[in-house]
């Protein structure tokens, strides 16, 4: 080791050079805008494409969109959806989901189910806060999913548009395909199971 290098080393040791070096970063940050959000007091803006809690949506006239086709169940890679379908007691031959469960603890928020849905009944919302003391409430049932859907309908619609699954409201009304509904023949007595 040369004399110069040795002197430098001694000098640095005397002046606590490493400490100053380290503190430089700290001091620099004192003049920065803070990066940490003060969650939950502060909240971040969430993009429309965000994959948050799942919701079931209704049409504007209040009808359930979901037709109980089980396709979301088939698409889900973590097998956390269970749909029980049946004939709508009020409409002949109309299929609907009499029960609908999503085990959100298993969900990996991949959004495949939303993509699979032929009627855009499922959507993801910006809701991500559903921590709870009771794990059982994380098995979202049909009521809960529709509640989320009602509350976050705007999120849901934006999600679908952002993911190119639906056009905006005006356009979608023209564009959307409805399955034909069974119309009962007026001259016929209603079927046994409806009378």
């Amino acid at each position: 080791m040369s004399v110069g290098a040795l002197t430098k080393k001694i000098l640095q040791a005397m002046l606590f050079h490493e400490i100053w070096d380290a503190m430089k970063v700290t001091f620099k940050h004192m003049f920065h805008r803070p990066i940490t959000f003060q969650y939950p007091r502060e909240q971040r803006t969430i993009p429309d494409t965000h994959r948050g809690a799942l919701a079931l949506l209704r049409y504007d006239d209040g009808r359930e969109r979901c037709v109980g086709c089980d396709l979301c169940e088939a698409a889900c890679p973590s097998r956390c959806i269970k749909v029980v379908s049946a004939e709508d007691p009020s409409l002949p031959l109309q299929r609907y989901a009499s029960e609908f469960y999503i085990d959100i603890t298993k969900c990996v928020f991949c959004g495949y189910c939303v993509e699979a849905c032929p009627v855009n009944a499922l959507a993801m919302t910006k809701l991500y806060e559903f921590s709870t003391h009771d794990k059982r409430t994380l098995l979202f049932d049909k009521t809960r999913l529709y509640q989320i859907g009602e509350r976050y309908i705007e999120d849901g619609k934006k999600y679908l548009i952002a993911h190119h699954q639906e056009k905006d409201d005006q356009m979608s009304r023209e564009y959307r395909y409805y399955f034909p509904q069974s119309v009962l023949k007026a001259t016929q007595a209603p079927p046994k199971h409806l009378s």
Partner: protein
Amino acid sequence: MVETVKLTIDGHHITVPKGTLVIEAARQVGVMVPHFCYHPKLKPDANCRMCLVEIEKMPKLQTACSTPAAEGMVVRTATTVVNEAHKSVLEFILANHPLDCPVCDQGGRCDLQDFSHEYTPTTSRFIEVKRVFPKEYFSPLIETQMNRCVQCLRCVRYCDEVMDVKALAPSGRGTMTEIKHFTHHELDCEFCGGCVQICPVGAITSRLSMYEFRPWMLKRADTVCTYCGDGCQITIQTKENQLIEVMSAQGAGRNNGDLCARGFFGYHVSTHPDRLQHPLIRRNGELVQATWEDALEWVAETAIRLKLAHGPNAFGGLIGARCTNEDLYLFQKFMRLVVGTNNIDSSARYGQINGVRALRRVQGTSRWTVTFDDIVSAEALLLVGTNVTETNPITGLKVKEAVKKRQATLLTIEALEPAVGTISNIANLAAHHFSVQPDGFKPAVLGLIKAVVEENLVSQPLAQKAPGYVQAVSEAVRRLSWQAIERATGSSSQSFIDATRSFTRTARAVILVGQGVLRAPDGSGLTATLLDLLLLTGHHGLPGCGVAPLAEENNDQGAVEMGAALEYLPGPSDANDQAARARLAQAWKEELPKGPGKSLMEMIEGARTGSLKAMFIVGENPAGSLPPSAGTMEALQSLDLLVCQELFLTETARLAHVVLPACSYAEKDGTFTNTEGHVQSVRHAIELIGESRPDWEILSALSVLMGYPLEYGDAKEIFKEIRSLIPGYGLLGPAPTPPRPDQAVVESYLKTGYSSGLAERYTLGERRAASGERKDFSLTLLVTQTLFHSGKFSTRAKGLLQVQAEGAFSLNPADGTRLGLAEGDRVRVSNDLGEMTTTVKLQDRVPVGLALFPEHFDQEARRLLRVSTDPATQVPYYKSASVKVEKAK
């Protein structure tokens, strides 16, 4: 030699029999030509144009489904022109298709879906509004969604060509064609489910499983239907251990994909909520839940105690012929070795035994010498005492196929009028039909034999070989006068002569013997007489000819072959055949019990008189099937030990000391032997319900506790043992190989064997009910089987209950008018034994003087019946009674 032609399909060279359709030839080289209206079961209709292919040297595209292959044809199925054609056909179909695949039960296994994925772009050029049919209520079990129909008319053609029901018809024109039932009321048909299965799209679906599943969720199990002797192969589809639907694939099993209502809609029995799930023990007079250990130990202890006190012959065993061969085999082994008695019987005693006895006596076989295929290719068919449509529907389809597609001559002798109704009627297809009263089968058969003799139609070789036999029979029938036969059958002598002539003319003749004969007094004798008829006409012994007794329960035949009868050892061999006994004793390493053994009725008698102390009853319900006048209830009540292995708490199980929960056919593995002697595999579709166990397992556990272990790892091991005893038993092939008549037995029958009982067989017998005078309102009540149920078992199937939920008293409208009764009236039916109240149903197909009541709902009707037992075969007969009918107040 079948003529063949060579052709080229998409570069594959293939040789096919002349007349093969191009679409079938293509299938053979693995080229699938898309199609909607074509189906191998149906005549080509070529209405959908989906199957267009290019054939060299033909100017236009041809429909592969209606073009027969010709020598040197060069077919291309995948050229641009062909693909364009497929695309445009599909585009027209899709123009009106609702595209509601996500909510359609066919979605995922739909031909239209598959072809669309293959041939069409994802967007349509049509912007016009699609047709929407107003929905009409269709039926309780079958649902239509006509918006989805592609108008291929397969359903309509199936219902007509195969089922002969003609319940469906297209109505409207062009795209507005709609499939409807003929009249304005809801669909009323055989509910065979054929239209549901054959519809290529989701236009006709089953309401029973509607929206319960998507095809990809289903787990399949190929098994065998548990209802009738036809032994249809079915595929039970389940989802998460729930029974979802039953189907049968084209080409599968002896039924070739066809089913009847019981098979298609009757599957919910297995998961009925009333299923027994735990063993029950009687404590203080009540049946209470117990553990398997307690129940089995109690049974074993009591049985050992009773055996020490009263000897093994104080025990009796009865098993239902719905059990598998393995169950039946182990049961008789259990009774013979563990208990040590020959008091064994099964529900084959109610009729099947009669048929087997006659076959063994005359021709030395225990099975049919024909198969279903021989029925289809028969030139003449004689049906005696069987409304085959209702008892053995698939055998019925074979008969229909023979008559409708192959122009066979059909002769029927049955208590049935040829009337058009909501279900098909075999008498309508008959060239010669004899509508007789239930006691008229014998006179009618004798009429045929008399005609054979008097018209000199007796086969010459037979007359030379066995002059004594021919002479004895000829004399016997000559003694009968035509007047008496005409009086007993209501048919003219000329009609017998005509029928006999058309029967003897043919080269292949099959006689089907039904429950009307087998479950009647001297059924065995009459079956032998029918064999006489076949001998006399010279058909007997020819290939494709034979007498075929129809089994009612799915494993009636197996019950006999497994030796679950006092007179038979497994094989079946006669119980007093010393060689067979020695062979069996060697295999079992134990001497067989000696002594004659008791039949069903003798066991009941024994129980009543106190000589029988204990009974093991497996899957059989004598208290529920025999009329109360037989005193079964009281007899069973007086037993010291009654053990029932049952699915449900039946009338018999209610009397038991211990009820052990058995599992149904849907939960177990094994084999069934169908009426033609074909052994087929039963495979479990769902897990065991509750604590129920297969019957053989229960018997095996009991045998261990009773100190004579019969232990097996699974049903296959038992089957192996059966096979070691009966070589070649159940080589599970696609079709049975029927035995040939044993010439030695036939010769000895022709020499001397015929003479025993000849006099009784060749008399007309007394008329059971006078048919002339009916001023006293007397009718003959006949308890029969109907198409929609099988025994009492199926009355727990929710699907079948929607078609038929209760019994009704079916009368001919003429009798209705005479008695002043209208459809739906309540009537009081009575005789000296008791009375019942029921509803009247007027049906043209019921002969005048007869009233039918379904046996499945006969709890009340049984009160009017009396049991008589055939002295020779011990078969109890209790199906008919003379009754008085009045309007109920």
